[in-house]
């Protein structure tokens, strides 16, 4: 029974990892852009939420709205003003620039919020749970996280495959050079992709703030989990990213069940095993 429980908890944890990963997956899919500051953006969103709710006493619902709007505008502007300049055939400049951003963000957070590890009190969400059996119960927060992850992936899937915007995003992913011949503006389309990714980053950050302790240096580890989920699932596949998150989550909780110290290691080992067995991931699109 403890194993079943570990699996159930792992699946739910996987929702959080899928949320970490979805934005990364989208940006890579549309722009072949690897954002090394992705984890730091998530942590920044978490701090923003924390500051709004505990620092300024704003109602959580408004805080959520504000965080998402702030992330959306910051994402769009960051792409237009900074990142579009380094996009190109060469993969190295974006990597260098976002690596620099990552360091700047971590130090700025350290300056403003100190190195103390923090967590956002989620009130009743923290304690409410549904009892499934004698030894298995599902916490309200993990369940909400998982539902949010499925909802986010489904929404992204819908935008991508059912709307004119998604058509433009896929076309840009295929062949950006001739998109202007269709009346599309690459700089704007890229920025819209980053805007969508940033809203997901905001959602991920809000859940991170409630789920675990975090500190200014927590970004790189979230980036690593996000990378692993994307690679396990297969590049360019959104449902694959959800699957990747779930597999990573289950691997970690089963590892933790064996020995509390094995949680992170087990996740990495499963990631490596899948990378060896299926280098293109489980549901590859590209």
């Amino acid at each position: 029974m403890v194993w079943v429980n570990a699996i159930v908890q792992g699946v739910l944890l996987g929702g959080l990892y899928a949320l970490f990963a979805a934005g990364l997956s989208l940006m890579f899919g549309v722009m072949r852009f690897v954002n090394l500051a992705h984890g730091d953006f998530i942590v920044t969103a978490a701090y923003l939420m924390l500051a709004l709710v505990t620092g300024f006493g704003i109602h959580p619902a408004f805080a959520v709205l504000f965080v998402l709007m702030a992330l959306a505008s910051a994402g769009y502007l960051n792409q237009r003003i900074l990142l579009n300049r380094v996009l190109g055939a060469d993969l190295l400049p974006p990597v260098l620039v976002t690596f620099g951003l990552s360091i700047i963000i971590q130090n700025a957070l350290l300056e403003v919020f100190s190195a103390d590890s923090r967590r956002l009190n989620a009130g009743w969400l923290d304690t409410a749970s549904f009892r499934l059996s004698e030894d298995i119960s599902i916490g309200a927060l993990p369940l909400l996280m998982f539902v949010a992850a499925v909802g986010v992936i489904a929404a992204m899937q819908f935008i991508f495959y059912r709307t004119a915007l998604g058509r433009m995003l896929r076309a840009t992913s295929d062949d950006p050079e001739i998109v202007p011949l269709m009346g599309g503006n690459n700089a704007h389309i890229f920025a819209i992709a980053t805007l969508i990714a940033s809203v997901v980053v905001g959602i991920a950050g809000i859940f991170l703030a409630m789920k675990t302790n975090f500190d200014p240096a927590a970004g790189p580890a979230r980036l690593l989990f996000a990378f692993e989920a994307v690679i396990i699932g297969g590049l360019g596949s959104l449902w694959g990213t959800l699957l990747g998150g779930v597999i990573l989550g289950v691997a970690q909780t089963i590892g933790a069940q064996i020995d509390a110290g094995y949680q992170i290691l087990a996740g990495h080992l499963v990631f490596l095993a899948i990378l060896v067995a299926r280098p293109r991931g489980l549901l590859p699109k590209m």
Partner: protein
Amino acid sequence: MTTLLETRALEAFYGDFQALFGVDVTVGEGETVALIGANGAGKSTFLRAITGLLPAKGQKVSFDGQEIAGLPADRIHKAGLAMVPEGRRLFPSLTVEENLLIGASGGRKGPWSLAKVYDLFPDLVAKKNNPGTALSGGQQQMVAIGRALMSNPRLLLCDEISLGLAPKVIKDIYEAVPRIREGGTSILVVEQDVGQAMAVASRVYCFMEGRVTLSGPPGELTRAEIAAAYFGTKTDEEAA
């Protein structure tokens, strides 16, 4: 006849390499004009320069009464200039119908719609949910033309639409030309096949090494003139 497109002494560069040297081309309203020339003559470069894919800042390109040189390519497209690019360049992850729909992204009003394109190329109806790249070469070319038409262009640029296709298929595709003109669209085709160019166009321009070496209505050009303009008049001894 009113002038639709006019370039004056157009030059184009790839880095330090100059590909066009002072090209003057005009296309009148309602005309079908052909560009011919050997490989590397600069025909595609000319199309890239007027569509904004290659920077032409500070030069003279007027289109439909507006100066378009230096405008971003998406703005030029919205002004009514559409291109069927060399090699078709369909979007592989889009279906045939999505490839057509994306051509209409600029939002220009006019006679073309999905139904009209399917009417022009009935072969595409059965394939509309296939990926664009799963079609035969001729059908892919039809999608590329339909995609450009969906923007209701004033001027349609076609870069080597017959390349690599069977004669029967080429004939089918060129049969669409009169119907495209009926919709009020002028046409500029780039053709390697001189006979085809002469048959379809009211005026031809011959390019060689980045310059216009000959132009005029097909009826007024002799075979010898065209051969000279196409391959150059220099013999090997003179060139050496």
